[in-house]
């Protein structure tokens, strides 16, 4: 029942289906590792570094005075257009792209429902980053001190003044031509450096609960983005408007809508309406993880008698939900014979894994990493060190034996799939069994060898599309374990021809079916001695 509930909770809606199809189109063009959709967070980090690097140069040449601010930016843009102008334009366009990427990142995670339950912390800590980004960017526009800066500064002050918190309206600082002095620009520089530093701190907190966060996109994506923005800087260099003049109000403006749309909204609506929209949006975003309340999934449970404290689950958990703590049950000090007497694993250390239920994603990657999850253990009831109550390893072994025992045909095939991708049960045939796990990462590699020993001719492992694992690292860890690059690894006694790994998203059922057919045909051919001699290694498709 719990297992079915978990399946139901993972049903995808129309929006996620559509987005997934778009991402698959991009996969074909860019490849999953360079697909911007799959690395929006990492792309935001790259853009932040571009903004920072270009900002350092601009700061070095910026004059923090009323007379010098505009002139110094103009000098960069015109006299030094071949470098300073490009750097300025790159700074601006990378900032615009940062907002765009941030909004897409937010929308994508929401569409995929990745704001609920254990993900609430990452989601909620992302919300202030939006406002910090806007604040840092808007202040940056003021530094230029052209008519756009004047408009934005006054509009922003009018918005803040609506709160009535200040003894004197902030807007009075921009009332007359002599109202602004040099100290204003020193304050702006302080804000334009301080706010991005706060933003960086917020970004660090945002990814704090993730193991191996994706903050560095692949080189093709990084260079591709940089090249696109640099080309834009060359084709459409950023230019200042006419100098600010507080005796005149700007009439028509070329607004940067990524940052200055709220300034225009103040006059299109009213400061009060904009405050309402801003506060309501913030509250809604913060509340989204609990709207509607997600059905709680049973979290991973540690069996102290079978946990040997190796720390592999701690290393593999994508959400840092597992910590290693000192054992207090006294088993570490017991003699091996006494440990065997209570039916526990004799190889234990002084540590024990502890799961934080609030952080656990119920993905089962920890069960797949546990060395006690091997089905070859001789104990009657297979209990592992850390397991998912909704699909325990012992139950997995029983199902596997049952499924293989009922297979009939020339070639017997077992497909391990995951609930987040193609429903592998639709691939079942008399000669093909399919078992769906919560995540491909839940599969202990020894199950592959066990399936072959039980009579399967080949094993296929499938799961979410490349770089699209619902639980972030399930694909990566599984692939590394099966390749022998990560513990627990698949023993080399398994022939490469007997295993096939295919990553396929929910829409790629037909491709997966074709891969299954091709694998089946290869296995059938291998059963012919002549064909087997020329077989190649096609383990990873």
């Amino acid at each position, binding site marked *: 029942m719990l297992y079915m509930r978990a399946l139901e909770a993972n049903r995808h809606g129309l929006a996620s289906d559509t987005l997934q199809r778009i991402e698959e189109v*991009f996969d*074909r*063009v*860019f*490849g999953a590792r*360079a697909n*911007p959709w799959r690395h929006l967070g990492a792309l935001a980090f790259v853009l932040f570094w571009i903004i920072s690097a270009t900002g350092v140069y601009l700061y070095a040449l910026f004059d923090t005075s009323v007379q010098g601010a505009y002139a110094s930016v103009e000098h960069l843009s015109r006299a030094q257009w071949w470098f300073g102008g490009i750097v300025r334009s790159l700074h*601006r*366009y990378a900032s*615009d*792209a940062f907002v*765009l990427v941030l909004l897409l990142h937010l929308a994508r995670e929401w569409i995929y429902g990745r704001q609920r339950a254990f993900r609430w912390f990452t989601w909620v800590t992302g919300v202030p980053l939006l406002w910090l980004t806007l604040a840092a960017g808007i202040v940056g526009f003021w530094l230029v001190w052209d008519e756009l800066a004047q*408009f934005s500064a006054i509009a922003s002050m*009018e918005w803040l*003044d609506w709160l009535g918190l200040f*003894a*004197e*309206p902030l*807007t*009075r600082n921009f*009332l*007359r031509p002599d109202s602004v002095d040099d100290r204003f620009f020193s304050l702006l520089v302080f804000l334009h450096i301080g706010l991005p530093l706060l933003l960086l701190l917020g970004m660090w907190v945002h990814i704090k609960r993730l193991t191996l966060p994706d903050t560095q996109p692949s080189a093709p994506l990084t260079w*591709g*983005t940089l*090249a*696109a*923005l640099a*080309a*834009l800087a060359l*084709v*459409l260099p*950023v230019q200042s408007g006419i100098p600010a003049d*507080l*005796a*005149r*109000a*700007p*009439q*028509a*403006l*070329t*607004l*940067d*809508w*990524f940052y200055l749309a709220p300034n*225009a909204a103040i*006059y299109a609506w009213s400061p009060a309406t904009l405050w309402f929209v801003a506060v309501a949006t913030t509250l809604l975003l913060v509340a989204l993880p609990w709207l509607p309340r997600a059905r709680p999934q049973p979290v991973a449970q540690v069996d102290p008698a079978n946990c040997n404290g190796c720390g592999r689950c701690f290393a593999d958990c994508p959400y840092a939900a597992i910590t290693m703590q000192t054992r207090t049950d006294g088993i570490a000090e017991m003699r091996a014979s006494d440990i065997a007497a209570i039916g526990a694993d004799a190889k234990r250390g002084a540590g024990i894994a502890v799961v934080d239920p609030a952080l656990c994603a119920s993905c089962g990657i920890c069960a797949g990493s546990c060395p006690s999850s091997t089905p070859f253990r001789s104990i009657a009831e297979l209990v592992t060190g850390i397991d998912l109550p909704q699909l325990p390893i012992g139950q997995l072994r029983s199902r596997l034996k049952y499924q293989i025992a009922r297979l009939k045909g020339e070639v017997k095939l077992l497909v391990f799939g995951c609930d987040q991708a193609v429903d592998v049960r639709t691939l079942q045939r008399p000669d093909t069994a399919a078992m769906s796990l919560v995540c491909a990462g839940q599969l202990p590699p020894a199950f592959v060898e066990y399936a072959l020993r039980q009579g399967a001719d080949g094993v296929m492992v499938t799961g979410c599309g490349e770089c699209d694992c619902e639980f972030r690292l399930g694909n990566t860890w599984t692939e590394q374990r099966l390749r022998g690059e990560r513990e627990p690894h698949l023993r080399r006694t398994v022939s490469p021809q007997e295993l096939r790994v295919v990553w396929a998203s929910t829409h790629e059922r037909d491709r997966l079916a074709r891969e299954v057919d091709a694998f089946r045909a290869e296995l059938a051919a291998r059963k012919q001695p002549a064909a087997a001699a020329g077989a190649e290694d096609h383990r990873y498709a």
Partner: protein
Amino acid sequence: MRRVVSIVGQGVLYAAFAAFVGVFSVWPSYRHLEPDQALLKLSFSHPGDRVGECHKRTPEELAKLPPNMRAPQDCPRERSPVSVELELDGKLIAERVVPPSGLSRDGASTVYARFPVPAGAHRLQVKVDDSVRAPGPTWERAVDVTLAPGRVLVVDIDPEQGGIVIQ
């Protein structure tokens, strides 16, 4: 062939991304003020007159106070709200009664308001009353102004410059 298609596709999509960023960083243009409009700003930060008379302390009263607090006058803290009326070409465009700030109502009355007005020649009349004790406006001023399109005209209060400042 597939690689060529991939490279071309990437070029097209990166170009679309750059175009999206470039376009919405300047377009559509925003009109803050109509071409034939000027801007009138009413803004002041001015403490109104005290609501009550100051009382001159007698020697006996002063003697009762600690030495460091023997101010010769005892004045009420609360200040009057500042009333302002703004007329343009005989038409009332703003009438405000601005209360003093602060929990004890002893701070300055502050206001900021903006009024887009047609450019051209106008007669501007301003009345300010900052005392509940004295009847009638404290300051009154009428000026003829010619506002160019986009011109900002500020109406402020500065007692040191004669009360109502229009510039």
